[in-house]
C-alpha cells in the first residue's frame, strides 16, 4: 500500500467530527493568510476613494465633509500625508483650532508642496500662537527666510504682538537693499514706537526712500496713516516725486494722503485744503473722506461725511460710525449705537466699548456688567481669536482687569493668535501678585503645552505643580537637574531644585545649590529668600535662617508657597 492510500485510509477511518474540525482548521488558516493582504487592499482602495471625495468636497466648499473624510483616511493610516493639505484647508475654513497643529505638521514635513507650505506658514503666522512660527523660522531654508512670502507674515505678526525690536532684527538679517515692503514695515515700526526720536527717524527714512525709489511713492506714502497729523512735517511733502503732485489718476486715498502732507507743509492752508477735499470727495468717496478726517483729528468734519442717524447694517461702516462718535465724544449716542450693532459685529466688541464709556461716566455698575458680559461673550464665541482680540482691545482701553481675565482665558484655552509668553509676562506677574494661583497654574500648564522647549515656563510650571501637590518633588528633581546643570547661574532654577530636594529630605543637595556666596539674597524674590532660609534652618544654622524670615512678607507669596514654607518653617525656627 502506497503512502497516499495509507493517508486516504487514515482519513476515512477518522471520526467525522475530527475530519470536520480538520477541514475547518484548514479553511480558517487559509482565510487568515489571505485576509491580511485583502484587508490592506480594501483599506488602500477605501483611502483613495475617500481622498478623491475629500478633494471634491473641499473644491465644492463642503468643508465639514472634507474634514471628516480626511480624518477617516488618517484613522486608517496615521502616516498618510495626502489628507493633510485638505485637512488644513478645511479646518482653516471652519475656524477649527486643530488647523494650527496641522499647519505645524505640514511645515515640518519634507513632502509638503510649496503652495501648501506657504499656506501653512501664512496661517500659522496669522492665527497660531506666535511661539510656533518663531521657533520654526530658524529651521526654514535660507531662500525662504529671504522670500517676502515667508518674511512678511512673520514680521507682521511680530508687529501685532508688539515685538518691534525682534521684528526689526529679522529685517536687519536680510540682505540689502531691502524691498519696499521691508522699508514700509520698518517705517511702521518707527511710527508705532511713537516717540520724538522715532518720529524724526520715521521722517528721515521716509524721505530717503521716497528719493531712492520714487516710483514706489504710493506704497511708501501709505505708512503716514500710522502717525497723527500733528507729527507730520513738511519734509515728506517736499520729498514727494513730481509725478505725485499733479497726478490726475490718483486713488482717493492717495490723493487725501498727499493733502495731509500739504497740510503739514502749509498748516495755514489747512481749512482751505479740507474744504477742497470735501468738494472733491464728499459725494463720491464719503467713507474714505470720513476716515481721512479722523486721521487729521477732525471728528466733527468726519461726522458730516456719513449718516449718523441710524446704526449702519454694514459692519465696516458701523465701525466707522462708532469711531467717529467716540472721537467726537458723543457718549450718549455712542451707547445707543453700541446697543444696536449689526449681527456680524461680535458682542464682546461693543461691550468692551460700552464698559469704557461707563467707566468714563463713573457708572461702575454698568461698567462691571459690561466687562463681565464682554468676557462671557468672547469665551463663548466660535472664533478662536475672540479672547485675544478682546484682551488687546481691553489693554488699549486700559481696562486692566478685563485684559487680565481675557488673556488668562485665552492662554488657558490655548486657542487663537497668542503672543509668546515673554510678551505677556505681565499676565503671569499680575496673577502672582493677585495670588490667583489656580488660574496661574492653568496658564502655565497651557503654555507648557504650547511652548514646548520653553525652559522658563517648564521650571515655573514644575515649581507650582510641586508646591500645590500636583507633582512629586522627585519628578521635579529628575526634570530640572539637567536643565540646572545647563544653566548653573540661574538662581530661580537653583531655588526650585533646592526646594524639591528639601521636600525629598535631601538637605545637603539643597544647601549645595543655594550656598553660592555670590548670590545677593536680599535682591531676590521673597520666595527665593524663603527657600534659602529654609535650607539654613534645616541645616541647624537657626540664627542665620531667622534673619531671612525677619519681617517676612508672607502675604506676597502664592497660597501654596505660603502654606508649604510656613509648614516647613513651623517647628524649625
Amino acid at each position, binding site marked *: 500500500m502506497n503512502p497516499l492510500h495509507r493517508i486516504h485510509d487514515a482519513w476515512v477511518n477518522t471520526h467525522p467530527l475530527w475530519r470536520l474540525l480538520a477541514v475547518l482548521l484548514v479553511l480558517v488558516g487559509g482565510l487568515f493568510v489571505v485576509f491580511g493582504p485583502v484587508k490592506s487592499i480594501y483599506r488602500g482602495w477605501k483611502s483613495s476613494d475617500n481622498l478623491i471625495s475629500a478633494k471634491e468636497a473641499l473644491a465644492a466648499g463642503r468643508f465639514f465633509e472634507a474634514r471628516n473624510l480626511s480624518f477617516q483616511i488618517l484613522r486608517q493610516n496615521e502616516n498618510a500625508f495626502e489628507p493633510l493639505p485638505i485637512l488644513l484647508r478645511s479646518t482653516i475654513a471652519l475656524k477649527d483650532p486643530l488647523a494650527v497643529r496641522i499647519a505645524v505638521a505640514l511645515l515640518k514635513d519634507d513632502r509638503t508642496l510649496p503652495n501648501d507650505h506657504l499656506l501653512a506658514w501664512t496661517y500659522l503666522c496669522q492665527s497660531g500662537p506666535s511661539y510656533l512660527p518663531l521657533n520654526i523660522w530658524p529651521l526654514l531654508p535660507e531662500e525662504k527666510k529671504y522670500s517676502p512670502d515667508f518674511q512678511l507674515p512673520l514680521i507682521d505678526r511680530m508687529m501685532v504682538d508688539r515685538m518691534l525690536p525682534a521684528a526689526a532684527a529679522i529685517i536687519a538679517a536680510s540682505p540689502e537693499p531691502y524691498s519696499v515692503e521691508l522699508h514700509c514695515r520698518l517705517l511702521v515700526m518707527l511710527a508705532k514706537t511713537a516717540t520724538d526720536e522715532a518720529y524724526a527717524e520715521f521722517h528721515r527714512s521716509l524721505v530717503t526712500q521716497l528719493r531712492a525709489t520714487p516710483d514706489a511713492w504710493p506704497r511708501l506714502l501709505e505708512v503716514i496713516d500710522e502717525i497723527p497729523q500733528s507729527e507730520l512735517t513738511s519734509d515728506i511733502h517736499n520729498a514727494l516725486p513730481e509725478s505725485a503732485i499733479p497726478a490726475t489718476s490718483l486713488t482717493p486715498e492717495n490723493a487725501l494722503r498727499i493733502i495731509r502732507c500739504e497740510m503739514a507743509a502749509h498748516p495755514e492752508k489747512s481749512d482751505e485744503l479740507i474744504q477742497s477735499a470735501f468738494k472733491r470727495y464728499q459725494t463720491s468717496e464719503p467713507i474714505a473722506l470720513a476716515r481721512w478726517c479722523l486721521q487729521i483729528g477732525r471728528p466733527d468734519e468726519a461726522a458730516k461725511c456719513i449718516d449718523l442717524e441710524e446704526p449702519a447694517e454694514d459692519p465696516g461702516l458701523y465701525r466707522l460710525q462708532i469711531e467717529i462718535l467716540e472721537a467726537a465724544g458723543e457718549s450718549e449716542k455712542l451707547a445707543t449705537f453700541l446697543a444696536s450693532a449689526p449681527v456680524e459685529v461680535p458682542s464682546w466688541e461693543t461691550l468692551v466699548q460700552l464698559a469704557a464709556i461707563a467707566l468714563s461716566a463713573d457708572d461702575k455698575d454698568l461698567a462691571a456688567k459690561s466687562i463681565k458680559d464682554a468676557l462671557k461673550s468672547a469665551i463663548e464665541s466660535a472664533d478662536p481669536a475672540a479672547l485675544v482680540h478682546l484682551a488687546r482691545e481691553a489693554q488699549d482701553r486700559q481696562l486692566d482687569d478685563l485684559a487680565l481675565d481675557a488673556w488668562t482665558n485665552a492662554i488657558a484655552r490655548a486657542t487663537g493668535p497668542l503672543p509668546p509668553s515673554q510678551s505677556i509676562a505681565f499676565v503671569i506677574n499680575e496673577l502672582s501678585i493677585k495670588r490667583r494661583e489656580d488660574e496661574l497654574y492653568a496658564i502655565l500648564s497651557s503654555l507648557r503645552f504650547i511652548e514646548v522647549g520653553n525652559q522658563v515656563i517648564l521650571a515655573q510650571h514644575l515649581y507650582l505643580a510641586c508646591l500645590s*501637590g500636583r507633582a512629586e518633588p522627585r519628578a521635579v528633581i529628575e526634570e530640572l537637574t539637567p536643565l540646572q546643570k545647563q544653566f548653573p547661574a540661574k538662581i530661580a532654577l537653583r531655588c526650585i531644585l533646592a526646594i524639591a530636594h528639601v521636600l525629598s529630605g535631601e538637605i545637603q543637595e539643597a544647601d549645595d545649590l543655594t550656598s553660592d556666596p555670590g548670590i545677593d539674597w536680599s535682591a531676590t524674590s521673597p520666595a527665593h529668600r524663603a527657600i534659602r532660609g529654609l535650607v539654613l534652618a534645616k541645616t541647624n544654622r537657626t540664627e542665620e535662617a531667622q534673619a531671612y524670615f525677619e519681617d517676612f512678607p508672607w502675604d506676597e507669596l502664592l497660597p501654596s508657597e505660603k502654606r*508649604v514654607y510656613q509648614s516647613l518653617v513651623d*517647628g524649625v525656627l
Partner: protein
Amino acid sequence: MKRILLTVLWMLPVLIAEVAAHLWMNPASPAEAESVLELSFPSGDKSWIQQSEVYGDVQPSLHCSSGWISDVGTEDGPEARVSFFRWDSTDTVNTLEAFKHLPEQCMGAIGMRLENIHPTRELETSGGLLYFDSTQFRPQDGGRAVHIFKCVWVGGFPDSNLRDDALMGKDGQELRQLRLAAAAARFRPRHTRIIMGGVFGMPTEELAWKRFEKMIRGQIRWIDVPSEPIRSSRQLPF
C-alpha cells in the same frame, strides 16, 4: 397538646441560642466610668466652616449618632476637610461600619486614585496614642494630591488600628468572618469615634500630616462618661 409540645421543642434551641448569645454579649459587671475621645469643633475660629449639609448627606449611610464635617482654610480657600463621627450605645454592626470602610473604597467612588499607603501615623494625646491611617490620593485625570488621615477609636480597644487590626480580616470584605470574630471576642463597645481629615495640595505626606496635626491637636479632648463596662478589653484573638 402533642402538637404544641412539638412546636415548643422545635423553638427551644432557638430560644436557648438567643439567651446564650445575650448572656455572652452582656455579661454582668459593675458599671465603670469611661474616657471617650472627643474632637471639639472650634466655633470661634473663622477658618473652620461647618458643612452641615454634607454631614446631613452622609449621616444616614454611616448610622452614626452625631458628628460634624468642617472645611478648614484661609482666605485662599479650603485646604482641608475634617470630619468627626460618634457612635454611642451602638451595636457591633455600626462599629464595624466604621472599620470596614477603608479610605480607598469611598475615595475611589468619587473618582480618586489611590497613590500610596503610608505608614500609620501616631498621635500622642493625654488619653493615649491615636493611630491614623495615612493614604494619598489623586484625581483620576491628575491634579492636586489629597492626603487622608483616618483614626478609628473604639472604647475598650485603645490600640485598634484601622489597617493592621485583626478586625479587618485580609481585605476588609470578609464580613461573615468579621462578625464571627466580633462575637467570639465579645466585641460590643459602647462608644466609637472616627476622626478623619483630607488635606489638599500638600507636596509631601509629612507636610500634610504636620498641617493636619496642627489643626486637630488643640481640639482633642477626653471626656469621662459613665458607662457600662467594656465587655472585653482584650484584643481580638485573630
